[in-house]
């Protein structure tokens, strides 16, 4: 994974919501990691499903895609794929640079 910033353009109307949204995603990563440790596929599926539903609406379609991968992985009990996608999500969030613009 590269060290370059990941630039995402977000609707300026959502600016106030974004810090809270990203905080919640960090919390999701913690929950996902602990669920992964415990092989708790139901929690993994549920969080993956939520990520899938919420990401694109805020402008983060990559989060939707990663969430979908985690959900599919959890349904298939595929720990490797889930783990990889959690790492991808963590990396994505750490490199995120947001540019707000008129929708």
């Amino acid at each position, binding site marked *: 994974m590269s060290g370059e910033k990941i630039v995402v353009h977000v609707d300026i109307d*959502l600016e106030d919501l974004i810090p*809270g949204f990203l905080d919640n995603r960090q919390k999701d990563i913690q929950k996902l990691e602990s669920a992964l440790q415990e092989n708790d596929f139901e929690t993994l599926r549920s969080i993956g499903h939520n990520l899938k539903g919420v990401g694109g609406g805020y402008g983060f379609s990559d989060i939707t895609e990663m969430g979908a991968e985690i959900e599919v992985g959890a349904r298939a009990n595929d720990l490797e794929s889930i783990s990889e996608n959690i790492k991808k999500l963590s990396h994505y969030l750490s490199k995120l640079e947001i540019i707000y613009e008129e*929708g």
Partner: protein
Amino acid sequence: MNKQYRLLVVDDEQDVLSLLETLLKKDGHEVETATSGEEALAKMEENIPDLVITDLYMDGMNGMQLMESIHSKTPLLPVIILSGQAQIRDAVKATHMGSTAFLTKPIDKDKLSEQVRYTLNVSANGRKDSEFAEGIIYKSNIMAELVDLSMAVAATNVTVFISGETGTGKEIFARAIHKGSERSGAPFIGINCGAIPEQLLESELFGHEKGAFTGAATRHEGLFRAANGGTLFLDEIGDMPLSLQVKLLRVLQDMEVRPVGSTKTYSIDVRIISASHRDLDEMVNSGEFRSDLYYRLKVVPLEMPKLSERCEDIPLLADHFLEEHAQANNKKKKHLSPESLDYLMAAKWPGNIRQLNNVIELCATLSKTKTIALSLIRMGCQDRSKQMKTLKQAKLEFEKNYLIGILKISSGHVANAAKIAGRNRTEFYKLLNLHNIEPAKFRS
């Protein structure tokens, strides 16, 4: 948007809730939120919103159960279901259960705005932003699309052909198009081409000169000229005889009419809207309808859906007919029980809106209680024989219309009218008395 609407948004995921709240507030709506179906119902006890948007899968009460609960108390309240899983079976089930729309997550800002605007424009007890849609009662997408198309067409001068089964509201749309057009200040004249004998139809449409044929005691302007500057609605055009079709085609090509018995032509400026319940494509194939006329009439085709194809409109329509019945009879408005409404929504309605109106009127008249019970609705729907006229009634009705038609042509001259009818004057007077028709009323 002139009016601020109240929206209740329900989702157990706080990020989705915040997003919806922000987007909808930006669109100018007043937004209240609830994190569960139970909380939503509690909030609705205090204040009923104009629209509910709910997630489908939630802990506790899910979106379908919430919608069911909402509709048991307020059957006409629009509900949009949101789901993270775009499963067709969910969407189908939600639609059957009365949801106005089904949107998928992630939320698409534009689709959300459009759907909410759509729903609010056309529902909520018939409150509509569009003057065009006044008198057209609907909330279904299929009708909303038809209204949009008709509005676009109204602004132009093109010829419109409306197809659809009997009782689907073809004339209401024709009138709406006229009203929404620049011609609205000029007359809208409608004629049922199937209800008038061929000879009379020609004279009725194009006019005739005095003495043009036996019984033509005075000059008749004809409907094309009477509708000049406005709209002529040719209903049941499929019933027009072939010989007249060619004459109509010529008029439409030249935009000129020549009254029967006249050598003079008159320019006309008339928009033509035609309609038929018959399959004109098939009639063209079988040679019963001229293809050249068909294509000239069908510049913009509008297809009226059957009532069974827009069953989500049935609660609104039923409510409207109940209101009409109450006002006409100066009585308190009656209501349908939720089971009655379900039954009406699942019925087949071969007679479409007209049949629904008949059933509602019958049930509202017969119901001794304020709430119309399912048993009565069942009876009203099944007793089709009562909705049909007897052969004698139908014959009498035809006879009356026929007599009126020839009296119009002969300008109330009984001897001439009797000649057209092939009866002597005494017999003719007897017929007029039977139908209580006064020939003097037709004298110009």
